[in-house]
């Protein structure tokens, strides 16, 4: 239900907003096209020079040791450089930039390295723009400012993509931890047990609900024991999710027994006005299991 959407990767509508935020106008797009001839002429020189510069550094040489790879990178670097002044800053531009950022992360290249490249672009382009015969001082200033804007936008996209990629890894790990902390298992023919440990937030309850229901259907269990001894606190939203889970389990045709409601949880539930009247609750998992076995008419000595 509530996905905490990543704020780092924008959707296309927001990309348009982002351009506005950076004061990037149609005029800037036109300006950049005026620079395209310069870019095209100096493209080879700029990229060669950039790599000469970068390869002075030991840590860069570690990443760029393979000549074949360097050749390939130079080619894509040229493409990248030319696109900056190609005049199209729509969806395709945005997507390419984001994907480049994600690729950098995947290759393990730290942002420090490519951030340096942007600075180098600016350094190289400044004299070329100012010394160009076609532009007077005022024009050159305007064009350079525009170039600076697209550099800024590109940097923002690269960083956003990087942060997003890092975030995905963190989220994936978080999901794995979540999955690990709610093991759902069949402990008897017809009985599944789900001990919940840790705070139950929206996303986690969501996942828990799906796993529990699927497990119930798979094992054809008519009783689900949910033990919440390990839940330190509960809020309105979580309590509601818990009630939703219980109702969903009942719709399937299974029964829920809640065990291990601690004093603080009992207090919160009552204060929140949550009605657990029709739900079987037991103090411990053992007591819950006994009830479950009784319900299934399984004799224990």
């Amino acid at each position, binding site marked *: 239900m509530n996905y905490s959407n990543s704020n780092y990767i924008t959707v296309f509508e927001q990309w348009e907003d982002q351009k506005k935020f950076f004061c990037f106008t149609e005029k800037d797009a036109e300006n950049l096209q005026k620079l395209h001839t310069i870019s095209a002429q100096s493209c080879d020189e700029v990229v060669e020079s950039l790599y000469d510069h970068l390869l002075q550094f030991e840590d860069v040489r570690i990443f760029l040791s393979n000549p074949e790879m360097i050749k390939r990178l130079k080619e894509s670097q040229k493409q990248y450089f030319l696109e900056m002044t190609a005049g199209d800053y729509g969806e395709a531009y945005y997507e390419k930039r984001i994907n480049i950022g994600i690729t950098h992360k995947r290759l393990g290249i730290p942002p420090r390295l490519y951030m340096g490249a942007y600075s180098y672009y600016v350094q190289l382009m400044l004299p070329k723009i100012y010394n160009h015969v076609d532009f007077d001082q005022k024009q050159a200033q305007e064009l350079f400012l525009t170039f600076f804007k697209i550099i800024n936008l590109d940097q923002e996209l690269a960083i956003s993509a990087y942060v997003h990629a890092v975030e995905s890894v963190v989220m994936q790990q978080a999901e794995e931890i979540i999955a690990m902390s709610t093991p759902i298992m069949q402990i008897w023919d017809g009985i599944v047990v789900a001990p919940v440990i840790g705070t139950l937030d929206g996303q986690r309850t969501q996942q828990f609900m799906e796993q529990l229901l699927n497990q119930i259907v798979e094992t054809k269990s008519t009783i689900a024991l949910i033990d919440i001894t390990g839940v330190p606190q509960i809020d309105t939203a979580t309590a509601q999710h818990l009630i939703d889970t219980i109702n*969903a389990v009942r719709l399937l045709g299974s029964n829920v027994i809640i065990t291990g409601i601690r004093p603080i949880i009992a207090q919160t539930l009552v204060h929140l006005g949550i009605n657990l009247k029709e739900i079987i609750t037991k103090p411990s998992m053992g007591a819950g299991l006994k009830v479950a076995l009784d319900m299934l008419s399984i004799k224990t000595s």
Partner: protein
Amino acid sequence: MFLKTLSVVKIKNVLLVTVPDDPSDKMVYELQEQVLRSLEKHRSTGVILDISLVNVMDSFFARTIAETTQMVSLMSGMTVVAGMQPNVAITATELGLTLGTAFSALDVDQAFEILNKALS
């Protein structure tokens, strides 16, 4: 899986109704009609609605099941809804839907068990 129409089968004193995966409103109306008519004809005491193929249940469908259950009950029958898919159950719960007084069962076998216990 390619069931396109409603199937109503009489097994002893139970009516087994199988609902296709994406029932139209018309079919949902028909379900109520057929169940009640068959119930009268066969003097059945139990109805099993097998909805294990159904992949969407909205408020109209849920209301019809709840109403049908009530009507069956007025005609002294008992209704068990069997095999609801987990996704459907989650969505129905979030939507705030209930099946009224209908019983639920994980599958048709368990539905028969519930009916046998209740009707014996």
